[in-house]
């Protein structure tokens, strides 16, 4: 199974780390990343919410400065795109909106992107399911 792990913290706190504090955290994380090896897909560090722009996916999509701040909707997915600038990113978001209206897209610049380290990214069925279905596990 593929999982996304979403990272939450106080951005004022994290973005006021000194370079030494930041390097220390990133150094500790790098050790974990290394240990994870092929388990680790792409990882991203986002810029603060002040750098965010939101596209409301209404019939006439509206661009709003700032992060997505509503609580009625839940985070359901994300894309990573590489384009020239914010206008081009908004254009992509509008194309996606046309195919899938409703809700919103928050467009947030990525500060750091760690590439996918996995050799194979084919999805395997959960091994535990296979084990549970194996004949020797079925009763005496």
């Amino acid at each position, binding site marked *: 199974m593929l999982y996304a792990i979403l990272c939450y913290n*106080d951005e*004022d*706190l994290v973005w*006021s780390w000194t*370079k030494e504090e930041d390097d220390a955290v990133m150094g500790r994380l790098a050790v974990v990343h290394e240990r994870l090896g092929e388990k680790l897909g792409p990882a991203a560090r986002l*810029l*603060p*919410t*002040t*750098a965010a*722009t939101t596209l409301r996916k209404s019939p006439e999509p509206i*661009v*709003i*400065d*700032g992060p997505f701040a509503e609580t009625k909707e839940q985070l359901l997915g994300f894309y990573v795109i590489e384009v020239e*600038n*914010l*206008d081009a990113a908004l254009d992509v978001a509008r194309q996606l909106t046309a195919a899938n209206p409703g809700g919103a897209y928050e467009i947030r*610049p990525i*500060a*750091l992107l760690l590439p996918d380290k996995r050799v194979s990214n084919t999805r395997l069925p959960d091994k535990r399911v296979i084990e549970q279905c194996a004949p020797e596990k079925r009763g005496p």
Partner: protein
Amino acid sequence: MTDLAWINSAIIGARPQAIGALLRYFRDLDTAEEAFQEAALRALKNWVANGPPRDPAAWLILVGRNAALDDLRKQAKHTDLPPEELISDLDDTEASLAERLDGSHYRDDVLRLLFICCHPDLPATQQIALALRIISGLSVVQIARAFLVSEAAMEQRITRAKARVATAQVPFEAPGPAERAERVGVVAAMIYLLFNEGYSAGDDAARGALCDEAIRLARLLLRLFQTEPEIMGLTALMLLQHARLPARFDAAGEGILLEDQDRKRWNSKLIAEGLALIDKAIRHNRPGPYQIQAAIAATHSRAHRAEDTDWAGIDALYAALERLQPSPVVTLNRAVATAKVHGPELQMIVPLEERLSGYFHYFGARGAFLVQLGRIAEARADFDRAIALANTPAEAAHIRRHLDRLTRSA
């Protein structure tokens, strides 16, 4: 992270919002500040024991307000003063508090607090000191160290500033759109002043921290006014300038000029954030001085080597800045950019001499123009004047290198 570190950060983060709201209740800066201090003390005990509240700012406002009301009631018993004379909005119910926090009240509370700290009646040095004390919550000792004055002198400066704003009659009703825009402009100017105070401090860490504080305040202002392109521009400008800090000084603490800096040492995270904010601002198509200055800083940031700098772009940006905010310094900067593209045009800067006669960069630039035009004797005279006006040893050393080159080639 320890719980205590989280609690500290939550209290600092909630501070502008909480003091802003308490100021609206009590209409007195000292009362609001004391109420907040009391609430913060109780938070340290209570949050450790019971876990942090869902909305730290709302908790601090509520507890702070109740503590201050208790105090005022006690005082009233001793002095027979009816508390009603000291307190406004007594009818505010606790239930409406959280709601107010989310609405425009909260935004105006913080803006009012910021605005009071940089009230036009206050001289600039008092504005910055008061903002650092009240909004950022720095101690008097910390602020005194940053301004290189004694603790007693700083204490006095802040006390005077508080006394002056107390009589300044800042209206407490929600401001209209025009007044709000004016307040935002005044606050932005104070934040940039604070930044420059830190930026000009050399590699002194205590003073350099003022830059971080200015950026933090700018982010706060930007969160309140998310659609203001000039606030995006101001934040971007400071981020892009601050990104150069690791490259601005050599091992001996001497300044290194932009063109000589090791650009690999620039902070790429801050640059990325600055560029993203300019990108956002440009979409509004409402250019302003902060956005243009940020765009100039961004142009430097995009050049991996000094010789890759897009001087034609910088020239055009200075021309735009000159139209919006004409000043002899801007014209001088434009002339320098123009010279990089088309060669020196002495007539652009000669008329500026009278107003820039005490300005190091004027004579440095004019000397460099004269060298290019082959007028060496005049160039030497200008370089000598520049050295006499240099603000730092690095500036003087830079000009001496020009003079050495002249001597060698002569």
